[in-house]
């Protein structure tokens, strides 16, 4: 029942939010209470799951043999905990951001946000691939109004890219893979060890894997990555939660699920296509990092960095080793905390100073020390420097690559770490060590201070989280190890 409540609560919240659209404060209270309630609900599940329980519930049977049902397993638990926790933080941030920006359509903003989170919960707890697909599409549709929130021509163009890429890949490739798998095996259940082994020859399995990996457009493996930078026209909290946590992580989460529970990593070892897809993921890591290096717009740089980091997780899944799986699962969490911190800082700078380009941010660390300190923590975690969470996931990823004897993967991870440093550290340097006077459009009237309090609060929580996860990684680590244990 709790599982059902986790999905239903955020999906039902919009009715109340819409009803209260005339009273902003109670309206935001609904969002905060829902987010808090959701986190408590999800958290109450984790003890059972750690002890090996798999709470499950079946809802409906749209097609004979295909159910809409939920089942909690370690990876889904991890993802749900992450998304629901960061939704609370982002909600606090959203209130400060939208109000100081005087955004329009705030009611529909909070409503669609709640629906998006409900869809994310549906993805996390999906009991079979069919259910996962339904919520995957629902997530695309419910985030479309958020991405195009500005309602202008740029938003419309980006919205087209967003829908075109995400619906296009999922409808043509992913759905085809789904129906195909179903017609071959007669089931779409997630099973330990996969459902394809012994039913499908490795050649066909290779084609299926290609369809799955590229069909999951939310994982942004090249060449289906361009929607991600386009989606940056969204308000910053949307970019932060949805395009650093919920949407993109739903993509890599699905990749991990498919690799572990549909194919099974033992079976994939015999499929030659796995190698090639891993190289494509590796190429995505490097290419996206190189593009990020050249971006002056801070949000765009973060977006390209996200593309690069997502492919880390795809790569991990395709290493087919248990350390790789642990690394991938942990990286979902670690990257989420670091990247959301970075996005929230970018939003804080935008709201306070109306600056979005890195070249305009000289000396900004002097007037916004708190924000930029948090930014530094996020950047360190992205590079993987202790004491931040990013170090732990990178450790396991490297371990996984070495276990798999994939020297290319090891090399790519090391080079990309350098690239991460190369595109994040200059931002920190510019902010702290350049003087504000060296800005080209510097005027003496610039007397902005720190960002609004709700924004600072959110940033502090996520930055602290990034550090805390280095010292106390127990919960995500235990869940990830359990996942790796299950996958064999």
């Amino acid at each position, binding site marked *: 029942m709790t599982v059902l409540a986790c999905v239903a609560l955020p999906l039902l919240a919009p009715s109340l939010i819409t009803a209260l659209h005339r009273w902003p404060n109670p309206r935001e209270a609904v969002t905060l209470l829902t987010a808090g309630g959701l986190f408590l609900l999800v958290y109450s599940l984790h003890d059972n799951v750690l002890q090996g329980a798999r709470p499950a519930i079946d809802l409906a049977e749209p097609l004979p043999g295909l159910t809409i049902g939920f089942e909690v397993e370690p990876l889904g638990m991890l993802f749900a905990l992450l998304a629901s926790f960061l939704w609370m933080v982002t909600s606090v941030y959203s209130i400060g951001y939208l109000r100081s920006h005087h955004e329009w359509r705030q009611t529909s903003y909070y409503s669609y946000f709640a629906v998006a989170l409900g869809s994310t919960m549906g993805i996390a707890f999906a009991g079979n691939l069919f259910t996962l697909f*339904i919520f995957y599409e629902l997530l695309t*549709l419910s985030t479309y109004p958020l991405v195009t929130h500005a309602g202008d021509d740029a938003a419309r163009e980006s919205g087209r890219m967003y829908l075109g890429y995400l*619906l296009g890949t999922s*409808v043509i490739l992913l*759905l085809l893979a789904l*129906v*195909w798998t179903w017609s071959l095996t007669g089931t779409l259940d997630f099973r330990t060890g996969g459902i394809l082994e012994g039913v499908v020859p490795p050649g066909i399995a290779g084609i299926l894997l290609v369809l799955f990996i590229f069909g999951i457009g939310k994982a942004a493996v090249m060449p289906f990555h361009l929607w991600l930078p386009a989606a940056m026209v969204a308000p910053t909290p949307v970019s932060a939660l949805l395009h650093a946590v919920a949407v993109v992580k739903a993509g890599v989460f699905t990749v991990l699920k498919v690799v572990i529970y549909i194919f099974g990593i033992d079976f994939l070892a015999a499929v030659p296509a796995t190698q090639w897809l891993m190289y494509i993921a590796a190429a995505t890591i490097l290419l996206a990092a190189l593009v990020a290096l050249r971006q002056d717009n801070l949000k765009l740089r973060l977006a390209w960095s996200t593309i690069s980091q997502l492919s880390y997780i795809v790569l991990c899944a395709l290493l087919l080793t248990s350390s790789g799986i642990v690394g991938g699962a942990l990286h979902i969490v670690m990257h989420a905390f670091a990247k959301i911190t970075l996005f929230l800082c970018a939003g804080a700078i935008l709201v306070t100073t109306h600056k979005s380009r890195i070249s305009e941010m000289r000396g900004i660390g002097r007037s916004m020390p708190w924000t930029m300190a948090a930014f530094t923590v996020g950047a360190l975690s992205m590079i993987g420097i202790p004491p931040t969470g990013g170090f732990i996931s990178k450790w396991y990823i490297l371990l996984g690559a070495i276990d798999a004897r994939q020297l290319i993967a090891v090399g790519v991870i090391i080079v990309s770490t350098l690239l991460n440093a190369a595109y994040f550290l200059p931002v920190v340097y510019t902010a702290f060590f350049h003087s504000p006077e060296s800005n080209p459009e510097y005027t003496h009237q610039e007397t902005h201070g720190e960002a609004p309090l709700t924004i600072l609060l959110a940033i502090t929580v996520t930055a602290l989280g990034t550090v805390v996860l280095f010292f106390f990684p127990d919960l995500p680590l235990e869940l990830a190890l359990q996942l790796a244990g299950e996958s064999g």
Partner: protein
Amino acid sequence: MLLSNLPALQVIIPLVSAPLCMLLRNPRHAWACALFTSWLVLGMAVMLAQRVYTAGTLSYAIGAWATPWGIEYRVDMAGALMVLVIAIIGALVMPYAWHSIQEELHKKQTGLFYTCYLLCLTGLLGIVVTGDAFNLFVFLEISSLSSYVLISLGSKRRALTAAYQYLVMGTIGATFILISIGLLYMITGTLNMADLAQRLPDVADTRTIRVAFAFMTVGVSIKLALFPLHIWLPNAYTFAPSVVTAFMAATATKVGVYVLLRFFFTVFGFHFSFVAMHVGEILMLLAVAAILVASLVAVFQDNVKRMLAYSSVAQIGYIILGISLASAAGVSAGMLHLFNHALIKCALFLAIGSIYLRLGSVEIHNMHGLARQMPWTMAAFVAGGLSLIGIPLTAGFISKWYLVSAALTAGYWPLAVLVLVSSLLALIYIWRVVEAAYFHVPAADMHRVREAPASMLIPAWLLIGANIYIGIDAGLIINIAQQGAAVLVGQMP
């Protein structure tokens, strides 16, 4: 007593009330009569479907003349499904018609409209329930002649040319069907379809029967607007009154598909149609062309009604594609889509009719910013559009899933890809309307419009609700479609 006469009453009641509408001078009375009849028809259709579902195929001899001399009415599961589709759509468009017809038609024409509507309903229901080939032709002509009148009632003068174009094409089609029935009668000496089915195999290898088959296929293909015989459809749908478009899009072409199924599977038999005459390959080719070409043409239309009309041609392609696979899975996917598409397209055309009522136009560039002024209508359009694209939790997804799976099982993976790719084309043309209504700022000289009246919103939303319900729990409808397909393709290997 009453129950056993259901198949006949199903047809006779609308036939009798049709002239009644003409006699009632007051438009309100005529409307009430048509509304009452439509709901009565729905009630009977539900009872009929129930009886067929529990008791199996019903047979009814008109005037108690024994078959094969008398006319037999015969309703099996596939027929019951069709009767249900027609009756549901009829019962939903009638409450909607009141405001829409008042706005679009001259007061003097309303009586004529309701009469012709009821006659069209009679014809469509008759085609489905009859088991007699010549009787089928008669009902086909009743429905066709009345639909020519219905289309010509459209408010623009081009409705007349559209109706004329349809008249010419439709008459050619009807003549072909009549020629075919004549040839069949010449060889076998019977008009009863069950009887025909028994006698045909002995004489199948004659040129006359092959010619009859060809005439029938082409004639019915014109009626159901199979590419490239669809050219009457876009004009007819664009210029007909909104109610007529919604009603016809959901029923008339679907009944054409039903006739095709009847003749292919029941009368000529699977072996003759698909093995000896290779109709499967021909249909598949035409269906693929319909899906691709019509979807592409739809993308470039500015008139939303015309856009949806081309989309209908493409969707008929989906249905025919399912049938052309010549497998039980394929035919049931086709029938499933036949039902689902009726719900989807009717909902979309009803939403567009509401827009026409308020705006007086259905051009995309006139719909800028409309979502602010008609939020419920536009939301219905978006929901119907999502179902048309085939997004999960809608009826469109269910039929797409079945179609793709049937294509894969039959080994035609390029067809599966084609179906999926063309659903993206649907995304493009639906989204053009969405962007106009939700993103563009209304032009300065555009006058404010109100939301459509409840009598027009509720039918549209009932259909949307049915779409979503089927998307979540399609068990019953899939069961009916599979049973219907099993009846049709019973003798298949």
